[in-house]
């Protein structure tokens, strides 16, 4: 099986799945299983990779820490190669991706009634793009996937969204484009510097790692990368697109946006930003800390004031991603591991929360907190999961978020105690708004007589799977930590 | 060469920029605009002929003749358009031709 170019299969399988969809473009009933099937195959592949990663790690790779690699000439004229690589971090992300897409497809099983063919196609294309982002080791290739995943999301929000969907989607697209164009310039500049120094025209990450860049230039280039990733992250002043996008996106869009797109930013920072420009990163670390902390506190405060549940969860995402940012900024094995784990955790938890809100929205056609109340009594199964994931989200020990946040705080404590302390304040604030949410929605007496049905079997099984995953990651994160151990050490230079 | 080459150039330049100035000033009358363009093309031909005389090379004269042929083609088409538009709008005043803005 290892003879297969597994990584390419991972990327292009969903695209091939699109072709399968073409004959049943207008037939919703038969298109849905096909798309879900493709996503499940992806998931199976990812699972197989996870199951066999220890075996793979024994096979010596060209690059240290990598499990699988692919390399082929693509556009030699520009020095662009088709280089893919899978290490522990990527594997985690790949698994998250494959899983989140299954979740997203399941949750939108009934809710997407119009233009289903287009919707499923876009989902699969996006899966390809995101897989590519997590696997690419050539900067140009990375950029390509980075942009490719944007377009389907643009359509998802714009076509199937609610509210001011067009405003939101254009805002989302422009913000991201702004960052990525600057990043493109920086990539090219880096490429040219490297070509000048060595005479080799390449965009390969590992060749470029050795480039000597003057500190000032490095600062500029890192700034460009940082901006692009920070927008995706999103860090504090650049976050404004996120609540809009989340609020107006369809449920599947929100799930993917929160579960995956945000992770591409942090992943990019980990994979490219810091390693390529260590000195500049060092210089800018205080900034990152500051932005992250401000983000956490600010987001939590704002979240408290939200009436729209999706908006609230979106702001909570900003806060959670702030922890990831802190972990990256510390650039220290424990904190970084925490960040990476937190990325996965946040993906699962927030994804689940968006699913829950989406389900509620499907039933009540509103997401206003003030419209609900007393759900605990009316739809107990739903309320249970709501409570469960809210607790996970606020970092209840034993559930997954706790692991990530704990590791981040532990790691950061050594390098920047003040930051850790402030971040802790953030956790407390998280507690406040989460409790408010849970209290208002589940336990307050009923405010409006809403005809709400409890979970269907599909929803129930989906949430069960999510909850089990949450629990497992919270209780037994060791295999995951093992998996990312070597790459993190290689990244932070502490073998 | 009967006169210094520079003097011919000055003459050509004067004519060329007179034509260009006229073109800029007469933006209201199609026929006058075309006339001004003719003046400019004449100056071009003068430079070609002067160059031909300077180097004893017939190419310049030929280029001038080609320019003439080209101009006649362009002018005939332009005037056909003027007639066509006039038939539709009863004016050659370009200010009246403002269906498109921006």
């Amino acid at each position, binding site marked *: 099986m290892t003879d297969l170019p597994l990584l390419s299969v991972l990327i292009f399988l969903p695209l091939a799945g699109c072709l399968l969809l073409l004959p049943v473009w207008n037939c919703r009933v038969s298109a849905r299983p096909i798309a879900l099937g493709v996503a499940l195959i992806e998931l199976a592949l990812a699972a197989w990779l996870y199951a066999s990663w220890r075996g793979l790690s024994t096979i010596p790779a060209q690059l240290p820490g990598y499990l699988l690699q692919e390399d082929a000439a693509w556009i030699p004229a520009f020095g662009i190669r088709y280089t893919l690589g899978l290490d522990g971090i990527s594997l985690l992300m790949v698994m998250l991706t494959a899983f989140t897409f299954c979740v997203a497809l399941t949750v939108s099983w009934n809710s997407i009634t119009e233009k289903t063919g287009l919707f499923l196609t876009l989902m699969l294309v996006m899966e390809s793009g995101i897989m590519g982002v997590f696997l690419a080791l050539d900067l140009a290739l990375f950029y390509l996937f980075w942009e490719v995943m944007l377009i389907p999301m643009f359509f998802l929000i714009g076509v199937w969204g609610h509210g001011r969907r067009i405003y939101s989607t254009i805002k989302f697209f422009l913000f991201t484009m702004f960052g990525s164009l600057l990043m493109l310039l920086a990539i090219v500049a880096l*490429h040219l510097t490297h070509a000048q120094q060595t005479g080799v025209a390449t965009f390969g990450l590992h060749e470029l790692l050795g480039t000597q860049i003057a500190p000032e230039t490095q600062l500029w280039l890192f700034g460009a990368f940082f901006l692009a990733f920070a927008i995706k992250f999103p860090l504090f002043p650049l976050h404004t697109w996120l609540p809009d996008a989340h609020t107006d996106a369809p449920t599947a869009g929100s799930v993917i946006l929160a579960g995956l797109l945000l992770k591409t930013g942090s992943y990019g920072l980990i994979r490219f930003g810091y390693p390529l420009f260590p000195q500049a990163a060092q210089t800018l670390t205080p900034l990152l800390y500051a932005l992250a902390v401000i983000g956490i506190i600010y987001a939590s405060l704002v979240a408290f004031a939200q009436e729209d549940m999706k908006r609230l969860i979106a702001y909570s995402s900003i806060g959670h991603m702030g922890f990831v940012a802190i972990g990256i900024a510390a650039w220290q094995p424990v904190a970084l591991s925490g960040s990476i784990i937190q990325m996965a955790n946040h993906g699962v938890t927030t994804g689940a929360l968006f699913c829950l809100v989406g389900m509620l929205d499907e039933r009540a056609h509103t997401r206003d907190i003030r419209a609900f109340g007393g759900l605990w009594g009316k739809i107990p199964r739903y309320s249970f999961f709501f409570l469960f994931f809210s607790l996970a989200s606020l970092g209840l020990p034993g559930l997954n978020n706790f692991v990530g946040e704990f590791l981040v705080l532990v790691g950061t404590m050594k390098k920047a105690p003040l930051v850790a302390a402030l971040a802790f304040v953030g956790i407390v604030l998280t507690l406040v708004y989460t409790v408010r949410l849970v209290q208002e929605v589940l336990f307050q007496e009923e405010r409006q007589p809403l005809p709400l049905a409890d979970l269907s079997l599909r929803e129930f099984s989906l949430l069960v799977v999510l909850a089990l995953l949450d629990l497992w990651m919270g209780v037994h994160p060791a295999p995951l930590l093992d998996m990312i151990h070597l790459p993190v050490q290689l990244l932070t230079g502490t073998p | 060469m009967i006169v210094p080459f520079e003097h011919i150039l000055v003459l050509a330049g004067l004519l*060329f920029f007179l034509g260009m100035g006229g073109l800029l000033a007469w933006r209201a009358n199609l026929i006058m605009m075309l006339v001004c363009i003719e003046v400019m093309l004449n100056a*071009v031909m003068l*430079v070609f002929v002067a160059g031909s005389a300077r180097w004893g090379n017939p190419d310049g004269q030929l*280029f001038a003749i*080609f320019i003439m042929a080209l101009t006649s083609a362009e002018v005939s088409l332009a005037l056909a358009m003027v007639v066509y538009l006039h038939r*539709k709008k009863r004016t050659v005043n370009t200010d009246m031709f403002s269906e*498109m803005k*921006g």
Partner: protein
Amino acid sequence: MTTADIYAIMPLIILTAGCVLCLLAGSLRPGFYLYPAALAVVGAALLWCVCVPAESVMPGMTVNRFSRASSAFFYATGLVALLMAYGYNRRRGIEGEEYPATLLFALLGMGVTCSASNLLMLFLGLEAFTFAFYILVTIERDSILGGESGLKYLLNGTLSAAVMGMGMALLYAGSGTLKLAELTTVAGIPEPLLQAGIGMILIGLAFKLSLVPAHLWTPDVYQGAPAPVTALLSTASKGAAVVALLLLFPLLQTWQGGHDLLWLLALLSMLTGNLAALLQPGIKRMLAWSSIGQMGYVALAFVAFPAGGDRAALLYVVAYAAAGLAAFGAVSILSDTSERDDIDSYRGLGYRNPLAGAVLALAMFSLAGIPPTAGFMAKFAVFAAALRAGEITLALAGIASALVAVFFYLRIVVVLYMKKPAELSEVRALTVAEILALGIPGATLVLLGVYPQPLLDLLKAILA
């Protein structure tokens, strides 16, 4: 003239014979059968260009790989434009043999331009296809816009011909030769006459490329001309002007002022074009202004000429041509008896006419430079070249304007897919010609965006 020469210029001979026969046949028996005939002629010329590697050096013309490849590009563009014109002209009642014949003549002019080896042929070639466009732009006699824009184009074009002619005259007067090769050897002399000549030629070409500040004709002409004509005008004619610039570039390089002038043109075009496009209510005017901006990127590539800008420029032109053909093709196919120009009238069309909508959206993405489309590769190449040449200011300005551009390109996509359709008129089934006219540029866009290497190899080979 030897047999080899005749073989080498056979595409031009085919086109000449084609357009004359088309006129004759049309006067004997008018009808739309002439379109397939013209299609066959262009196809034959294209095939010959691609398949018969005949090369020769004649007085005034040099047929080599460069000229063969460029003419193949022009003929392919013409082919697509003809395909989309067939149905369009039928619906709009543009009858007569003039359209196909003039189109063939335009292609002939472009073919001559790209194989010219002296200033005379270059000038005549440029003027020939511009002249053909004067007719094509006005071809719709029932529309007052057509006549107006034709006249505007003609006035501007003639002015540019005068300026360019003056430049060539000064070059000739300063050097005594019309041959490009000889001129290049003389041009090194710091002779003000030659420099003035180069500058004026550059300004003349700026008209053809519609670079700011010589762009004023562009929006009106694009709006007034029928969409298939605009498609060809915005792609092939720009391409031919770029080719002419490439042919003249060895001259231009000898003078720093030329570089500075081009720098200014590039900057102004990128900013003005993209900013003005923001304000346009009509799709053709929007595309017109955006094409001004796009040509600014080409100029940027030329500014970075020594750093691989030539290849970037050609790549950009090909990508832009594919996108332009796709966009205007979609416009012409979505137009019925009247042209669908108002952007608002495209609401929801992406679903009612999926292929046309998809291709239009694809073209917009490509123009905005978003991967995986050809536009991205082209922008990538251009910015790479610009950075390599150290033109950081221009590159930043380009990036900024590209970001602005994303906005108005997306507007089209938004309208296509995210707005409720206004009226539910009958949806016309696409004909084979229309599917081809949309499919070819659309496929090119994707193909070039994913795997541009063959084209890059080709460009490298022809530029060597």
